[in-house]
């Protein structure tokens, strides 16, 4: 298990470096940064001045190494737009995104796994059909529209919960439902398929032949094996929710990382874009790593191969 984790960590490090190189290059290849920072009305001298000031006239490799050197010490430079460092901006926004993503994933797991198990156990019954309907609706409905509907019903009409802002936990309930519902169908259906497959397997028959109770057969022997692919999917979903919650964050005016990235892109705030891209990539890497470790803990065939 130890060597397994070390090996995975080394791979993760390589992936992180690659992403930082690629995103840095892409940003610098997307056009002349100095021109877009200076704006459409700037004179040639102003552009040239910005170019020297921001070090954009130096070779791209040395620019990258400078940036990497800073990044390794958690120094991502200053925002071109806000009067603060990039790190301050990210530290300020991160808790919002983490809370939203964590709540949404928790909600999705709590609904999708039990629902998937019940749907598999009661295959082709009305419960199964209802779960399928729930999944299809979730997959078909745009999340911004569902978010707006939630606001109309629970914030405007019923006045139970606030519609916007990020002051307290109550502000996160509606966005977490909107974001979590989006992640539920895939996990629910994967759980259902996995359970159906596992319940047919020989070792379930062995478990029943031992006289074990139905509960032990389902939860100890079946779910443990059916859940393995769901863990990996949940990690990807969480990564998506942390990085891709731009839409939900703007619908509910939650100033999280997604919104920061969006604003930074539209304001040509390159240091912020670069840092947020790296942070979101790191989320994915860490989550995939955690999923691999969780999978290895669940499936002995992975860790002792």
């Amino acid at each position, binding site marked *: 298990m130890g060597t397994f984790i070390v090996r995975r960590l080394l791979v993760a490090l390589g992936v992180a470096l690659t992403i930082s190189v690629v995103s840095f290059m892409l940003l610098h290849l997307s056009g002349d940064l100095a021109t877009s920072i200076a704006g459409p009305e700037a004179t040639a001298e102003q552009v040239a001045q910005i170019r020297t000031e921001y070090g954009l006239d130096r070779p791209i490799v040395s620019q990258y190494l400078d940036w990497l050197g800073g990044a390794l010490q958690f120094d991502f430079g200053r925002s071109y737009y806000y009067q603060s460092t990039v790190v301050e901006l990210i530290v300020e926004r991160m808790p919002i995104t983490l809370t939203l993503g964590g709540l949404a994933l928790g909600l999705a797991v709590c609904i999708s796994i039990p629902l998937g198990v019940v749907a598999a156990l009661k295959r082709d019954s009305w419960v199964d059909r209802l779960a399928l309907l729930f999944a299809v609706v979730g997959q078909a409905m745009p999340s911004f529209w569902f978010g707006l509907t939630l606001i109309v019903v629970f914030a405007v009409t019923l006045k139970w919960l606030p519609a916007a802002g990020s002051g307290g936990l109550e502000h996160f309930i509606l966005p977490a439902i909107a974001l979590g519902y989006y992640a539920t169908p895939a996990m629910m259906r994967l759980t259902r398929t996995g359970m159906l497959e596992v319940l047919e397997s*020989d070792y379930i028959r062995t478990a029943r032949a*031992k006289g*074990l109770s139905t509960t032990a057969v389902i939860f100890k022997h079946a779910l443990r094996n059916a859940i393995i692919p769901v863990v990996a999917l949940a990690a990807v979903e969480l990564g998506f929710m942390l990085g891709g919650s731009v839409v939900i964050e703007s619908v509910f005016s939650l100033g999280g990382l997604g919104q920061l990235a969006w604003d930074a892109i539209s304001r040509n705030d390159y240091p912020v874009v670069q840092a947020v891209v790296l942070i979101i990539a790191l989320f994915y890497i860490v989550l995939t790593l955690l999923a691999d470790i969780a999978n290895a803990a669940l499936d002995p065939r992975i860790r002792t191969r």
Partner: protein
Amino acid sequence: MPLLDVQDLRVDLPVEAGTLHAVRGIDLSVERGEMLCLVGESGCGKSMTSLALMGLLPRRARLSAGRLDFDGESLTALSERRRGQLRGRRMAMIFQEPMTALNPAYTLGNQLCEAFLRHRLGNRRQARERAIELLERVGISAAAERLAQYPHQLSGGLRQRVMIAMALMCDPDLIIADEPTTALDVTIQAQILRLLRDLQQELGTAVIFITHDLGVVARIADRVAVMYAGEVIETAPTQALYANPSHPYTRGLLSCIPAPGKTPPGSRLQAIPGVVPSLVGEVEGCAFRNRCPLVREGQVDAARCERTPELRQLAGAHQARCHYAEHRAATRVVQPELSP
């Protein structure tokens, strides 16, 4: 009183085309400490019979039985709860595929101790001690270390030994072994067979051994029941069956076994021509008549075979389901070697 007494056991499965009569009224009895072999080709209902005895039939299957008594207690009258207390405790099962019959996610120790703990035969330490003792008994070295291993770390033969140890954990009265050696290499097969027979004789456990291989039967069984198309068509003590096979199907099966030194090299391997009749819907008359060499060669009155034959007493405990069981056909039967 026999340990297991089954009369007129029937298992029906609803299928698209109607009802599949997988088991069509079989009678079985197993004495304590006896080894009964249930022989037949694929689809003859032998696995369905074993699942019916264990109470592990698929939910859609319908079971009926004139009598289904285990140790004097009617199994059909038991609640699912009481049935669960019997299963794994007093009747255990060994399955065909050792590669998939163990849960890949749990250690051998965990899976071995499970039934022992479920049936409250002792605490964890006692369960562990019993698991080690049984692993050693089935010929697994370094038993204590094996408990921490996972199924994928073991070969097929070792896993089947673990399955046998697992079945023995609660010291059952009856073990049902469903083709336990079919998936194994020939050399491993012989080892596992010997192990099962030794254990059965030493512990006095009754065993129902299910196989399609009459060669295996000769080496281990006390008594044989040959199944065809969901029925028992011949049953006899092993010696009597080999000395005097009375149903044309049994004779056909025996002639299919090549015997070293007796079957001339280069000669054609014997096979029974034709296929098993469909068991969807009612089967009228003798189920074997469309493949029967006696009928084909005109040695018997085919019209009589249109009537369903009864399982008739021949001599002693020898019974056969054939109107012409006393007819000695010219089918060459090679006697397989009987074990001493």
